[in-house]
């Protein structure tokens, strides 16, 4: 009788080429994604060693971090950005790697295009030189971020050296209330366990609240697993997953579903499988969230008050106060009604069609507040096209919003889409570190619904006011 195994174990163990004695595992990688920022030095390494890419067909490339989100048909103005994007194109050409570069109809943010093009499939091991690679875990994969040296490893041998992490299961029971989204779920969990709370663990999310989520909702959850220190996050594939994949335009017609679905249906944790740590949360208790500080764990329910120093341990109080000082907030204050300057809708966390639909539905028939500068950035060309095909761009335009072109944009502001110093930005992204969206920028992480509400009122607003 074989020991019960978790889904994570099943995928990890079946991909181990060798376990090094007292060392890491050699893990075979099914799908490798690369982008322009973390790949150049990896290719330089291959060149210096005089070796080719081992399995070029298993690497997919895109340009997303550095690209402008307007006038993409014109040459990139910023010299270093342009050079990086050109370098990626040159490397892909030289090494025979498929690239969906700037202006290609399949271009977009790496963690948006992989799933929507059907490259990400249940049971795979997936890596990318980007910490939000955990996004792909939504399909029941072992997906995690790696450094550039590891990118070079994968290009050279299709394997990566990794110690096997511990396993954590997070169960969300109950039911999501109105106005509460998958973004709020993960922000709530991180606020409860902190940014180091899952360090050393690979997380599996389960529970009725999770099963009820769409694939895009699941991607948002898995995406932010890294923000609580987890190595990765995954959700077992089910009917929702299979239906999503079947309906993808790029999924091959000749795919033999009968044989594979049988295999894929085995992709779940066994009944009595043991996790190293288990946590449970009640979905009923989750409200729309917003961050007030400078790490993703410093979040509160939108109608709540910022903690006071009484609520904080003495060892954390120095960094807590420093954080609030940067944000221009004080302990104990309420955030509702606080003026906002920018709203950013986009990123690998919330830049998909459902996110844009949610935003459009709330702003429909209303007008953007005059004090708000809004950046709406679709996650990919395919998302952009769907927004236009479904007439959502007209709804957005009438409300005073303009859709830009795909890219990582203001999430980390490597391109010109920077939030100015001291300005408050309600952002559907994943990190609110000091200066991330621009030197001195003040990021307030939130869901697309909450971002839409702020865009209309010009201040931090409870999105539930807009829902009947």
């Amino acid at each position, binding site marked *: 009788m074989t020991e019960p195994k978790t889904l994570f174990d099943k995928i990890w163990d079946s991909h181990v*080429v060798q376990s090094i004695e007292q060392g890491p595992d050699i893990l075979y990688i099914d799908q490798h994604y690369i982008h322009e920022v973390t790949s150049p030095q990896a290719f330089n390494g291959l060149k210096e060693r005089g070796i080719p890419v081992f399995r070029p067909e298993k690497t997919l490339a895109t340009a997303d971090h550095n690209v402008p989100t307007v006038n993409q048909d014109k040459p990139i103005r910023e010299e270093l950005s342009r050079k990086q994007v050109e370098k990626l194109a040159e490397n892909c050409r030289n090494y025979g790697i498929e690239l969906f570069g700037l202006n290609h109809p399949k271009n977009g943010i790496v963690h948006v295009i992989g799933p929507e093009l059907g490259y990400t499939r249940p049971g795979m091991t997936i890596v990318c030189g980007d910490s939000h690679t955990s996004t792909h875990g939504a399909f029941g994969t072992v997906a995690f971020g790696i450094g550039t040296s*590891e990118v070079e490893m994968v290009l050279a*041998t299709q394997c990566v050296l990794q110690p096997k992490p511990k396993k954590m299961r997070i169960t969300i029971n109950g039911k999501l209330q109105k106005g509460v989204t998958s973004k709020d779920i993960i922000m709530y969990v991180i606020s409860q366990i902190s940014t180091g709370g899952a360090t050393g663990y690979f997380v599996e999310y389960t529970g009725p609240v999770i099963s009820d989520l769409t694939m895009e909702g699941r991607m948002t959850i898995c995406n932010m697993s890294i923000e609580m*220190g987890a190595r990765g996050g995954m959700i077992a594939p089910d009917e929702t997953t299979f239906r999503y994949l079947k309906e993808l335009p790029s999924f091959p017609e000749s795919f033999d579903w009968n044989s594979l679905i049988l295999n894929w249906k085995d992709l779940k944790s066994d009944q009595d499988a043991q996790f190293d740590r288990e946590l449970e949360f009640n979905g009923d208790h989750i409200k729309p969230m917003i961050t007030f500080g400078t790490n993703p764990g410093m979040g509160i329910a939108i109608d709540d008050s910022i903690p006071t120093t009484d609520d904080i341990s003495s060892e954390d109080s120095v*960094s807590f106060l420093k954080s609030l000082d940067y944000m221009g907030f004080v302990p104990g204050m309420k955030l509702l009604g606080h003026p906002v300057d920018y709203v950013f809708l986009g990123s690998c966390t919330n830049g998909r069609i459902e996110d844009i639909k949610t935003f459009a539905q709330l702003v429909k028939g209303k007008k953007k507040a005059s004090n708000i500068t809004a950046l709406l950035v679709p996650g990919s060309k395919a998302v952009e096209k769907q927004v236009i095909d479904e007439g959502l761009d007209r709804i957005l335009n009438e409300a005073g919003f303009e859709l830009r072109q795909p890219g990582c944009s203001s999430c980390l502001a*490597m391109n010109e889409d920077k939030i100015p110093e001291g300005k408050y930005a309600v952002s559907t992204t994943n990190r609110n570190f000091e200066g991330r969206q621009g030197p001195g920028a003040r990021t307030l992480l939130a869901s697309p619904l909450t971002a839409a509400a702020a865009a209309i009122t010009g201040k931090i607003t409870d999105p539930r006011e807009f829902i009947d």
Partner: protein
Amino acid sequence: MAKEKFNILQSTCVPLPFENVDTDQIIPARFLSATSREGFGENLFRDWRYDKTGNRNMEFVLNDPRFGGKILVAGKNFGSGSSREHAVWAIYDYGFRTVISSFFADIFKNNALNNGLLPVVVPEKFLNNLLFIIQKDPGSQIRIDLEKQSIVILPDGEPFIFEINPYKKECMLKGLDDIDYLLSKKDMINSFETGKKS
């Protein structure tokens, strides 16, 4: 390609008594647009070292002439955030060969070990004591012996034995590269692929 071997390091330290230093502070995203591994040391802790007009912020430790050395001593939870290996390259390129803290984010720790930068985890008490001693006497020296896994505050401190993954320790001692190791396993990888297809 082989890297510098790491065996014994004896040096003064640079204290960075801040907690939760994330990768956006270590190397801001706007400096990631380089295509080689060199030159990142220039921009290490950029927004703390220089003010908005580009002048040196004399209050920041890297601009304080009293402190120098190859060892960086940082508050807990160092290196959280992005997987950008550039953070490690920046620290290494600047001249550091070891970072000491009571807690490192996973990806950062991995990246450091892959690049010849030794992350040493010590208990909070040891860390606080170390920070106190360095700030009191900037000339204080630390001796790290990777083979013995020991770290000691000279001249007569109690050695602390730190943890390190045995495989990584071997690689650092021998100046070995992970990729050379993997390349030597090509046959095994080929067999694995063939086995999966059947």
